[in-house]
């Protein structure tokens, strides 16, 4: 089974980059600075996380510190859903 990092990377590359330039996206790259997500993108990301990892994300958690890079996402998911580790 792919790791959380691999699952998240695949989602971001397919859904926001349409398969383009995934090899140039590092785990630390900011989605905002790279222009990868727009306002709809944040909601798409949240819908994916909630469904994939069976978690509930509160409005206060919708901040770049949780969602703005693959590294941030991995940390956030591991914190929210320790069993997925």
């Amino acid at each position: 089974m792919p790791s959380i990092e691999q699952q998240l990377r695949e989602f971001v590359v397919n859904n926001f980059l349409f398969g383009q330039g995934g090899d140039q996206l590092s785990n630390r790259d900011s989605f905002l600075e790279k222009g990868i997500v727009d306002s709809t993108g944040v909601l798409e990301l949240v819908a994916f996380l909630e469904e994939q990892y069976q978690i509930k994300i509160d409005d206060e958690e919708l901040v770049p510190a949780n969602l703005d890079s693959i590294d941030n996402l991995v940390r956030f998911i591991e914190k929210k859903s320790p069993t997925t580790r």
Partner: protein
Amino acid sequence: MCGIAGTLNFDGEKINPDLLRQMITMIRYRGPDDINVYTAGPMGLAHARLSIIDLEGGRQPMHNEDKSLWITFNGEIFNYVELRKELVGKGHRFRTQSDTEVLLHLYEEKGEDCVRELNGQWAFAVWDEKARRLFLSRDRMGVRPIFYTVTDRAFVFGSEIKTVLAHPDVGREMDLRALDQIFTFWYTLPPATIFKGIQELPPGHSMTVEDGKVRIRRYWQPGYGRNSGLVTEQDYADRLVELLVDATRLRLRSDVPVGAYLSGGLDSTVITTLIKRFTDTPLKTFSVTFDDPEFDESVYQKEVIRCLETDHQAVRCTHQDIGRFFPEVVWHTEKPVLRTAPAPLYLLSRLVRDNGYKVVLTGEGSDEILGGYDIFKETKIRRFWAAQPDSRIRPLLLKRLYPYLPNLQSQSAAYLQAFFHVKPEDRFDPFFSHIPRWDLTARIKLFFSEGVRSHLKSYDAYEDMRRRLPAEYFGWDGFSQAQYLETAHLLPGYILSSQGDRMAMAHSVEGRFPFLDHRVVEFASTIPPRLKMKVLDEKYILKLAMGNRIPASIKKRPKQPYRAPEAQSFIGGKQPVRHAYVEELLSKERIEKDGIFQPEAVQKLVEKIRGGQTVGIKDNMALVGILSTQLVVDQFIRNFNRRSVDAVD
């Protein structure tokens, strides 16, 4: 309103009238009432006429008394009655009652400066037989188009690009820099068009072709910050309404009945009100309604119809209609578009024509000259927030600004700050107002193929735009800078062309725009920004000027930008939609063959939409942009000869 075309051979070879006839026939929908050509040795002019003024006498190309000057003219000179009186006083003799003949005599009298006297919307060419000189001019705001190209042997021009492409010496190749511009700004930067080597005469410019040389001269451009000498709010409001009444009155000059578009918004309500209250013209109004309540404004339309008691007709636009008519729409826009918004206007002009009308007045231009667009409000809020980036209250204003964008409502301040570029240093960027929009749009260049990207590696659309700004731009306040970008670029490059002239003329309908009377535009540029937008009340001065003459519900209603259903019109999500041309043009094989986009990326986008996932602004723009680009390639580059046979038949 009409269509024009012409050719001047540099080598002296005689013009073949059949070629001219073929060129003008490509756009006969612009003037189905009459087609004529005039040739004189190496020079030829062609005209397709939509008769509106002097139905009997206004045939073109038209000559002066001694046949030394010939004109082909698309447009209207609204102050022709006054100009004619002056010219008669100076000894000019007229054979017709048309505005065309007035233009011809005015050119005789004033030469190239004649355009400064005109109140109107025009694109015309005058052939001066004695001087062997061709003079062409386009109106100040860019209401009417002229495209041209210079080949080794000839100068070729026409109202639309397809007339120029019909000339056998003209090649058909996409200009990738122009494509980059559209995928950044929504429009090309004049004189570029989406076709390599074909240019447009920019608004407010004239040109001469003489001895094989082309000379282009600007005679007008928007400017801001001049002092009108007025003091109170009421002074400004009174002057505005006085000018608008006169601009509307002049635009009702016609020998055929005149109608009006009614969107349910403030601007078209103002124009309809002015016609009803200040003239005795019987008025028929037309509107488009949508099945989808997200886009529909019929509640407000009904309110205006009830108050003003107009005779009204509406056309209902469905997702299916947009998908079905989109190839025709792109045949008329002649360039890729990132929105489907032209399509409902295509249906609306058909409704007008089917009701026997040829002329409509609309509220176009008000948002640009009086600061009505959300982008002006957004810029004000961003600037206010950027002054105190840590404020928790200020970002809430952005949510209030876009109640119709549900995705924005659930965003945290940190995200809003990033999306809207709210950093203190951003405030000094000359493109501060437009950076969020352009940056977002430019993301869809992700779909460009490797080949296209490599071709564009050294091209920077922002820098290109920056180089074209007038020196004064950098001295204007931020509100005026934003207004300039909207008025000088978006208005002619998209609103008046792709949504305006091209959609109306597709069904032989002429649009007239009182807000774009140059006296109104010049006066509006002197109105202080604080009166255009009072705190966050857009077009405050217009509402003050109209007072109780318009329904209070229209004055108070939240601004809703004109939008139409996008991706779901072509692919559908949960409700599948199928159009054979969409499947063909977006197929992996076709995308690969045309070479502009990355086939795998396009497939993933299509799958995403088909899968019924949430599709945001960016994905919608990408799909519409890719599909319309593929349609341009299909109709203008690959199959132009076949398409032009259809057009001529």
